[in-house]
């Protein structure tokens, strides 16, 4: 059966994950919030280690450290109060969010307690990483490969869309392609003529 030390460690890690998750919304500093979230994910990764999923657990730590680092840099770039030197209110729609959180907690809790998750322990010498590899490149190959390529395409597309360097000039000067005949009118749609679905006015940074 499960060993009491493992149970204790699991409880501590769970408590730590929940506490740091709560701290994300209580600290005034967006940088500290990013790294509290990272700590929460690190605790979840450690739980993955306890569940004999070493690759998944450690890869969670790896990915979350990088992601929260990027988030912290974005906080420093754009947020006008990344250090939390002014008190901040970071939660919107209190009532709705509390209700949504309770509903999610009750739903997930019911799902876990009322269903029958497997309880056969993994044999100690099982090659779990190799089995994971076979699964990723065997039965689940289609899902992971399409997800990976889609993510890559999204990232490349986002960088290109946000880049100032347009194909025919600077993007914020309304780069226009050259004409179809030498010296002729530029081909394609002229920017600013059609309004699009509706103008979105930028409301500069919220707390």
């Amino acid at each position, binding site marked *: 059966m499960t060993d009491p030390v493992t149970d204790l460690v699991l409880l501590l890690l769970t408590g730590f994950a929940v506490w740091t998750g709560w701290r994300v919304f209580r600290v005034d500093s967006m940088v500290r919030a990013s790294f509290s979230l990272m700590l929460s994910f690190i605790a979840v990764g450690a739980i993955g280690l306890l569940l004999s999923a*070493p690759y998944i657990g450690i890869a969670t730590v790896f990915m979350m450290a990088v992601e*929260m680092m990027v988030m912290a840099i974005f906080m420093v770039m754009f947020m006008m109060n990344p250090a939390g030197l002014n008190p901040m209110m970071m939660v919107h729609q209190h009532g709705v969010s509390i209700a949504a959180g309770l509903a999610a907690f009750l739903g997930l809790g019911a799902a876990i307690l009322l269903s029958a998750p497997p309880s056969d322990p993994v044999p100690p010498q099982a090659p779990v990483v*190799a089995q994971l590899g076979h699964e990723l490149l065997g039965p689940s190959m289609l899902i992971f490969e399409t997800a990976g390529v889609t993510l890559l395409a999204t990232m490349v597309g986002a960088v290109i869309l946000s880049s100032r360097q347009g194909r025919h000039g600077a993007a914020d000067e309304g780069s226009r392609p050259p004409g179809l005949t030498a010296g002729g009118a530029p081909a394609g749609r002229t920017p600013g003529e059609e309004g699009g679905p509706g103008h979105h006015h930028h409301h500069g940074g919220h707390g």
Partner: protein
Amino acid sequence: MTGLLVLAVLATLLAGTCFAVLLDRAQPALVAEFFRSRVETEAPDRLNRDLAPAWYLALAAIGLSVVPFAPGLALIDSPAGIVIWGSCEALIVVTVFLHGWAPNAPFPLIGAYRYAALALPVMLPSMFVLIAAALPAQSLSLIAIVDSQREIWNVIRQPLGLPLFLVVALALTLRGPMDYADGADIATGTSAEESGAARATWYLARAAMLVSVSALAATVFLGGPLGPLLPGPVWLWLKTAALMALTAWLGHHVARPPPGRMLTLLWIALLPLSFLHLAISGVLAL
């Protein structure tokens, strides 16, 4: 055996840190720095400022713990040893960022995010090179990687690996061409507002990290504890010391480009090179 391995890791860290300080010829300056007083900036993040060197040291210790001291013997014997090292690299970037963010001053903050902007891309060639080394071993475990080098070392059958990994080593230990966190053009960056014991401890943590990253490079590329005549740990120490000397030499003798140029070189030269290296190693391993 675990106790012995813990002792071995700590002793290696201690001796290696002393050796790194000797390589920099920095012993008197280090002693002098401990006698100076600490300075305070206004509204710093005290927790991160005081703990950043400790976390850096802890990451160096964890990185060294996955390295096998004898064939088949490592303190952390995980089937995903390389991924543990990868998470250590990612957390190092976070630690250096926090070290620069904590003093609430402009130059440390510039050093912090400049370093993050460069160290995150540096992690990509690092991972590709380590994965390429894992291919002949058919395992992510460092013990298996050492075993796969019994006939031939990885530095010979995968020649691009060690040079690329040395670039990573320079970035993780904040040395020379990759020292964007503590550069002279930003008044020593993340250390610009520190003096006394804090400054000295940060330097010691960087020296400990040099030990750790050199030991890993020695394991993955130079066969680690493998070698005739001498016992395993002694070979590991000799190879680690050689790589530490090489990394320190590169740190003192190669110029540091402005961050924009280094970013271009990373994304346009080093990353495709590491892709190529991985592709060739994959074909050879098939």
